């Protein structure tokens, strides 16, 4: 196992200070290793995640070579030649487990933002105290965007949140963590070959969730109540002005409708499986409140906004992969983790084999199946 830095490197270096896991502690489990602390319904801080993964590496006696950066993987006669900062390795199979979030993505028009405005991505952001005083424009309303908008607002700054398509979820539903429902009702186990629109499922932004001791919901209504101003998707910069989409109302409708449909699925499951008695009665949440009139432009040079935080998603970095298996959008071409080059595999990508593929506990089933394929490949290759 090659690790460019230390075990749990991205959890150590590429996360903001206040972040906690979105999954409750009881759900954080790896083969033979699970949470044993006093708060199964809580959410791990980054320090706790690092400890958890370090402990797993020790328990599993994983042969990790830390501080080993991979600079190239290319095909060799019967396998691959891997060039690393610690020398070359020849191997017959390679499993890519470098994740889908190696680089923050930022729209091209970021170049047109006046230099007087500080721009940050989640990789550069640590806490509100490091930002200039004054207003902040947070772009993107996935888990990252809503969490940063909330903590920046709590720091006393005026915050504007630019909202495109998003996934709305309550933290608790009928008294249980919404991720308990995802797990128990079987939605997370839906396989990649059963999902209606796999491309869409793989591109879905992370749900509007936050892990806090209060187990509170952090949807757009919660942000509005805190005084965060909502504007539409940021579409362009023209004459030093940010132009936002006038379609805000519809992205609210889409998210509200999808959430309601998901809650219906949970209710149907509970009824069908006789689980109604152990959970609270069904509930429905108020539709997302539409602002009286959302502004569709903002003068970036006026000083109203001093900082922009781009929470506009991440992309994988395959710059080191010298095998032609990356599509025109920079995504790995694979079928359930079996990459389109013999002996090359992937793990830990969105909906790799199941909806839960990118969650800590979700990789176990995927890994079993991918490694099955890998061992058959090695056996057949002899």
């Amino acid at each position, binding site marked *: 196992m090659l690790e460019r830095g230390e075990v749990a490197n991205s959890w150590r270096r590429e996360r903001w200070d206040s972040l906690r896991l979105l999954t409750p502690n009881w759900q954080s489990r790896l083969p033979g290793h699970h949470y044993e602390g006093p708060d199964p319904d809580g959410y791990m801080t980054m320090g706790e995640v690092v400890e958890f993964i370090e402990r797993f590496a020790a328990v599993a006696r994983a042969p990790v070579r830390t501080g080993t950066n991979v600079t190239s993987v290319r095909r060799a006669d019967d396998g691959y030649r891997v060039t690393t900062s610690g020398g070359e390795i020849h191997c017959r199979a390679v499993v890519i487990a470098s994740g889908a979030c190696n680089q923050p993505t930022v729209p091209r028009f970021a170049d047109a933002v006046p230099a007087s405005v500080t721009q940050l991505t989640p990789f550069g952001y640590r806490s509100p105290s490091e930002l200039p005083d004054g207003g902040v424009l947070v772009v993107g309303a996935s888990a990252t965007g809503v969490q940063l908008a909330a903590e920046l607002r709590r720091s006393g700054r005026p915050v504007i949140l630019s909202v495109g*398509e998003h996934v709305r979820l309550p933290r608790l539903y009928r008294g249980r963590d919404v991720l308990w429902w995802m797990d128990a009702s079987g939605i997370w186990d839906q396989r990649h070959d059963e999902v209606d629109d796999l491309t869409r499922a793989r591109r879905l932004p992370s749900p509007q969730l936050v892990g806090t001791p209060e187990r509170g919901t952090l949807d757009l209504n919660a942000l509005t109540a805190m005084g965060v101003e909502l504007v*539409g*998707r940021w*579409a*362009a910069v*023209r004459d030093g002005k940010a*132009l936002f*989409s*006038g*379609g805000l109302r*519809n992205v609210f*409708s*889409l998210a509200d*409708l999808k959430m*309601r*449909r998901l809650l219906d699925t949970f209710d149907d499951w509970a009824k069908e499986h006789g689980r109604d008695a152990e959970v609270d009665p069904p509930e429905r949440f108020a539709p997302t409140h539409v602002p009286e*009139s959302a502004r569709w432009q903002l003068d970036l040079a006026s000083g109203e906004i001093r900082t922009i935080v781009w929470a506009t998603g991440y992309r994988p970095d395959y710059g080191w992969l010298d095998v032609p298996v990356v599509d025109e959008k920079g995504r790995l071409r694979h079928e359930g983790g079996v990459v389109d080059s013999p002996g090359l595999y992937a793990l830990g990508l969105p909906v790799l084999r199941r909806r839960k593929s990118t969650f800590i506990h979700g990789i176990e089933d995927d890994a079993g199946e991918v490694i099955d394929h890998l061992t058959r490949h090695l056996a057949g290759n002899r």
Partner: protein
Amino acid sequence: MTTIDNGVNVQALLDAREVLKGAPEAAQFTWRASSKWENGVHSTTKIQNFFGLGQEQSHKSETVFTADHPEVFAAEDNGITPIEYLLVGLASCLTAGVASVAQNRGIQLRSVESTVEGNHDIRGILGADSDVRNGFNDIKVTFTIDADASQEDIEALVAQSQKRSAVFDALTNPTNVTVEVA
């Protein structure tokens, strides 16, 4: 499942989507209109030809649109106001979307009606107040749909129609417009 028919050939659209995924150049269309000044603020615009799927295409016949301004604008009112054509475009695009999405989702439509209202402060175009914009301040579309579906499914149809609407996008998002003198 009983066969539902809203008159939309969804299969052809789904097939086209698959083909064009691998052929982005064929997906490049250019829509064209030619306009001619008549007199006053009255003009005539004709549409027949367009480009797409890699070649010149043509509507079955030419359509002629007359635009003018109403008498309260001291004009002759030979036709609708140009900004009203945006309402025509929006309503027809969203309606087409509702029918297509309904067909794709197996929902039989019985009637789809909508009203579109665009609020417009004309002090902008008159130059009476430079803080007032020229275009619509806001637009409201109200659909009344009779279909074999729940209220929630109907709302989802309308939401998905907006999500995939060319005119909704063109109105809600900025577009680069170049106007030249030949």
